């Protein structure tokens, strides 16, 4: 599962770490001072490291809960994100993480209690409210059997019913949720692209069918479930792949019961895009014409807006406009 486990000396004696090291005793373990010695060094190559990622167990210092970028959320409440982990077990070619870090290793910040303290302080500053996103710099559920993220953080949010936690994921690791009582202020938000996009650009990601099955189970169990259509990447096939995707999803899930549905176009900071192009000069997606606005790069398409409107029109056959928002 991991090529190596690097452990900051400072976290070596934390029980959570001891348990992990015992569990993965067959994986080479290397002690380091700070995770920055191993992670995101100048001469590293994200694409090569994806061949055999390592796990880094570290302590997060500094701000642990940050204001979410504008346009990220689904309502007007104050919104925040926190990252107990950096990097993702999946390998999606369109992902901004490839341009954000030079390393594909997974950093797991194990000082959950410090995250918990920061989160509860922020919730209390917001009179018990606010929206908190997890899964911005990682996939929160995909490494659940290793991280036990849900086991720790869901009880925190259960104590604050007016605060909302969104867990953004592409994972089918929902056993940890199905085994516990529903946390009514927790939303499981699953990302989807079309079948064509998934085949072309998503490696190691569970199939659409398996993800839908997981969401279906969650919905039946009473969990709040959301759908994120991100990134929308329009190809020569036009709208047909989206028609097929929506038909598949809404034949399996109850659209009226969805917490929310959103869409977002392919966008990333110019610098990230430049780094990704260097890593994947052979990738067709990055060979497409682009346009830059306010430091963000997007695929250039004269019909982008009309396509987006057409996709939204299709989507609104299944969900209400109150459930839908456009991200970014």
């Amino acid at each position: 599962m991991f090529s190596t486990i690097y452990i900051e000396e400072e976290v070596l004696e934390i029980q959570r770490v001891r348990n992990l090291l015992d569990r993965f005793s067959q994986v080479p373990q290397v002690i380091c001072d700070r995770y920055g010695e191993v992670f995101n060094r100048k001469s590293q190559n994200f694409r090569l490291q994806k061949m055999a990622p390592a796990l880094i167990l570290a302590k997060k210092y500094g701000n642990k809960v940050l204001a979410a970028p504008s346009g990220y959320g689904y309502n007007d409440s104050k919104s925040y994100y926190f990252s107990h982990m950096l990097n993702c077990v999946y390998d999606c070619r369109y992902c901004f993480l490839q341009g954000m870090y030079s390393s594909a290793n997974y950093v797991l910040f194990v000082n959950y209690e410090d995250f918990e303290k920061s989160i509860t302080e922020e919730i209390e500053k917001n009179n018990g409210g606010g929206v908190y996103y997890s899964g911005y710099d990682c996939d929160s559920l995909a490494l659940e059997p290793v991280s036990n993220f849900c086991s720790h953080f869901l009880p925190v949010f259960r104590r604050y019913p007016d605060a909302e936690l969104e867990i953004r994921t592409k994972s089918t690791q929902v056993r940890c949720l199905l085994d516990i009582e529903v946390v009514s202020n927790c939303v499981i938000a699953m990302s989807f692209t079309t079948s064509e996009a998934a085949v072309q650009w998503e490696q190691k990601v569970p199939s659409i069918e398996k993800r839908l099955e997981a969401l279906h189970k969650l919905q039946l169990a009473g969990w709040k479930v959301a759908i994120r259509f991100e990134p929308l990447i329009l190809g020569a096939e036009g709208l047909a792949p989206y028609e097929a995707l929506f038909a598949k999803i809404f034949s399996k899930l109850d659209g009226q019961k969805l917490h929310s549905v959103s869409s977002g176009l392919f966008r990333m900071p110019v610098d990230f895009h430049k780094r990704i192009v260097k890593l994947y000069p052979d990738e067709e997606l990055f060979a497409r014409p682009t346009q830059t606005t306010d430091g963000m790069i997007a695929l250039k398409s004269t019909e982008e807006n009309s396509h987006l409107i057409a996709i939204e029109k299709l989507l609104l056959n299944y969900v209400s406009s109150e459930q839908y928002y456009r991200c970014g």
Partner: protein
Amino acid sequence: MIKSVKHSMPVNIVVANGLEAKALVKMLELERNHASAEFVEYSNPSKLRLLVSGIGKEAVAAAVTYLGEQQVSDDGEIRAWLNIGIAGHRDAPLGSAWLGNKITDQSSGASAYPPQLIEGFEVGSVVTVDEPENSYPLDSAYEMEASAFYAEATKYSTAELVQIFKVISDNLENPISGIDIRRVPSLIAAQAPQLLILIERMSAIAQQHNSNQRLPSYFSEVCSEIHLTVNQKLQFRRLCQRYKASGLEEELGRADLKASDARALIQQLAERIDRISEA
């Protein structure tokens, strides 16, 4: 011995002394290359290079610089770098060997962590010392080049393709003072099965990387015919990559894309691929 390799092996091996090289020359079917007056150098038709640096950090850094500077190219190709050598450890059996996953420079205290992409090898830490170490205080292989090798080689390649392989030649029971240097070639030779796999795998990763980065031959053809400024070359390079990534490599060099000056050519290529990709 290495199989008769027809394909390219973009691997540089650096050893500290001729005895370490001796076994490798035979194992890898290398021939002496007299190009350098400064270093003893070997190579084979598969482009595998072996350099004897001399002992210590300064010597190995100079050797890496010598080789790296020769191989710098603007086509984005990189080579794998492997430091092979003997080391001491307090209690590891003579002849045991591992890939370094933590390289600590004893004098500065700084550590580097070569990413471990290649499975199936023993791994362990390595400490680079300025003088031979007799007491081996840590559970590490003690030697005299690795930290400088890694620091220097990562200037020419990506860290994933810079590795350190150490074979234990001395320990507390068999101290360095009593080491029979004539045994060094056999200690290295005994690692042949492991070393051949390691070199093959490093070579395969480097080749895959280079293949992903490879530009259409049109790029070098045009560069040799038309003068391009640095900026134009970058633009032209990216356009060639876009054509290749879009499966349109054969479009490059079409008669209607011929232009006598770089600016016109770049403009034509850009307009064409934007038109095709957007359609």
